[in-house]
């Protein structure tokens, strides 16, 4: 089955934006809950949510990092490419021109999600409606994912959608761990009592709390969490799982040599990293480097299969 590069690119971005919308919603949800649990005075600032998504340049210097501004930025702003409303709109634009290679219901559901977000995003910045909105976004994204996974023919369309999902998810998972790393929180905010709460809420944002308890145990402990979220093969949001899945989809594609080389390098550095021996500083630096590798992989995917250049 032949596939136009442009169509492959739009499917890939549809998947990335849908995943990003869901992940941002999860993160925001988990963080909003966390803040309520932590004793006044030691709670981390709202700025973390912006920094975790590398959103500072778009957020700008003139806005204060308070709850209202940050949540509006994450939920409703239409110029923030990491924001929920923006991602949903971008996903819809990508589906609009690829409808004919997707199951019919995909367009309907994506369009519905878009209409929902258009109507409710701005009204859901405050604590009162926020929870419901985020839940809705997460649920509908999951439904669309489920629809894609159960109805898509396993050809190029499926392949590029999966690449988009997994790459975005791997990236987001490393960002979530970065919140736990001291560098983001600032050492002065750290204390023994608060730490497990933060890590637990991060696990929750990855839907991984239950699996963690069953696999590792009830005690939330830093090194175990990092190890688990980085390298647990069976956890669908672990970095390892995502990279393995990407590899599986890259292998059948033509001209995959460069992309595989970059991917395998990332996989090796992931297996070599040892959370037991790493300080928080090291963890943060590792994540920084790792994210650059993922960016490089994304760049190579688009250069190899999407770029409108002559061969």
């Amino acid at each position: 089955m032949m596939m136009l590069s442009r169509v492959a690119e739009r499917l890939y971005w549809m998947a990335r934006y849908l995943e990003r919308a869901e992940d941002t919603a999860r993160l925001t949800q988990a963080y909003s809950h966390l803040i309520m649990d932590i004793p006044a005075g030691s709670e981390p600032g709202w700025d973390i949510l912006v920094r975790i998504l590398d959103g500072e340049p778009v957020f700008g210097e003139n806005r204060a990092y308070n709850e209202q501004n940050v949540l509006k930025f994450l939920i409703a702003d239409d110029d923030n490419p990491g924001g929920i409303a923006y991602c949903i709109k971008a996903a819809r634009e990508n589906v609009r021109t690829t409808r004919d290679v997707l199951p019919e219901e995909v367009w309907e559901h994506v369009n519905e999600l878009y209409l929902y977000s258009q109507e409710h995003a701005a009204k859901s910045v405050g604590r009162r409606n926020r929870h419901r909105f985020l839940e809705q976004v997460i649920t509908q994204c999951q439904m669309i994912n489920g629809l894609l996974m159960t109805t898509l023919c396993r050809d190029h369309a499926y392949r590029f959608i999966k690449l988009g999902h997994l790459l975005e998810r791997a990236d987001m998972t490393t960002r979530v761990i970065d919140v736990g790393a001291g560098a983001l929180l600032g050492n002065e905010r750290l204390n023994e009592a608060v730490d497990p709460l933060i890590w637990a809420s991060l696990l929750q944002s990855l839907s991984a709390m239950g699996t963690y308890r069953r696999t590792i145990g009830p005690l939330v402990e830093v090194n175990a969490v990092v190890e688990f979220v980085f390298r647990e093969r069976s956890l669908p949001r672990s970095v390892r799982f995502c990279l393995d899945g990407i590899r599986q989809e890259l292998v059948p594609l033509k001209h995959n040599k460069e992309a595989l080389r970059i991917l395998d390098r990332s996989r090796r550095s992931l297996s070599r990293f040892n959370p037991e021996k790493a300080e928080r500083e090291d963890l943060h630096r590792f994540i920084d480097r790792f994210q650059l590798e993922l960016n490089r992989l994304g760049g190579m995917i688009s250069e190899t299969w999407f770029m409108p250049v002559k061969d």
Partner: protein
Amino acid sequence: MDNSWKRYNGPQAGDFFDELITDTGRPRVVARNAVKMLQALSAEEMAARRAAAELAIREMGISFTIYSEGKNIDRAWPFDIIPRIIPAKEWRKVSLGLAQRSRALNCFINDIYNKQKILADGLLPADIVLESGNYKAQCANVSPRYGAWAHICGTDLVRDKDGRFYVLEDNLRVPSGVSYMLENREITKRVLPELFENHSILPVDDYPSRLYSTLASLSPREQRRPRIVVLTPGIFNSAYFEHAYLAQGMGAELVEGSDLFVDDDDCLYMRTVDGPERVDVVYRRIDDDFLDPEAFREDSTLGVPGIMRAWKQGNVSIANAPGSGVADDKVVYAFVPEMIRYYLGEEPTLASVKTYLCMNQPDRDYVLANLDKLVVKPANESGGYGLMVGPHASKEKRAEFAKLIESNPRNYIAQPTLALSTAPTCIDDSVEPRHLDLRPFILQGKDSWVTPGGLTRVALVKGSLVVNSSQGGGSKDTWIVEDKQT
């Protein structure tokens, strides 16, 4: 409950020809069963069928885009559930006439870009043709396969009050509307399935496969399945729905300009995830001017640089061929009957509308003196833009057109106002006569083929003659029915 049909105020004293009802108020023979069945429906039931049609249109996603107030608006397709019915016997003659016309037009285009015999023989003035904006010098000395240039032609027909079909104009550049013809039939099948029991209606749904065969016959490479693409300007084009529909129907790729490139071997390729794939035939739905920034408008981002080179080398076929528009100029229209005699040695079987060419002094004088009786049209606009219907125009409008004609006579033609035929149409809660036209599609490749029927467009505003969907027109399913009694 009274059925609104009983009050149908059809043709009065032969003012108009009505497609379904005779002057005496009785259904025409060919429409008898359909009218009987529709008249038997109660007002509630009629309303329910109309609602079902609207729902089907929304569900099937049949829409068209209009550009208004700086915005693109996606509108649901306006459809009237009462079909327009034409006897098969009558249609066969029309169909032969359409094929004849298309053959002659293609001979003409091929002649103009090659030997120009018709100009040398003085049948029509050379400057009319060669100075027209539709004549593309870049296309000279090209001979496409089978001498076919306008592979897809949409010819607009109307019936005057004498009940005869007249050719109003030929659309040879990028005629649209065929997907709506197909969808209209789909909707009618869903909404009025009973009607199909008592009629043998010629099917229309093999159009995409006919189009595929026509396009495939143009392939420069001998291949079992030539690579065909539909080239669209993109989602913001008013006919994007149709482009996607036809691509899907033919199993062809729907591409945008940036998906294609011409390589150093002067062949056309499309960019795929497996690398470049050679393209054999391009069914393009963008205008000549935007087709190739190397040959036409430099600022075009919709087209493909070098595609004209590939076409001239014979490495790719383009349908319709660039430059085909030279024959759908409204001034050239006046000469088509002559062309049929000249190229085919046949008498035209389809009537044309008397056309006054403002470039000729006596015609111009007549037009200016009779603006209130004539329809004035610019020579090369389509979509019903820039025309004036004399009897319906204000004094100011007529003065404006008089000035336009005097300043650029070559650009205007005028025709008598035809009494377009009517058909019963659902308007609010009643059934009223509305004017309509018909656009059949003619395919020309190795063989020629004419759609059974075509797209019927109907002016929903009372008394209006403007049927274009961009200007408030609707549409009807068009039936060609075998009439066993005749």
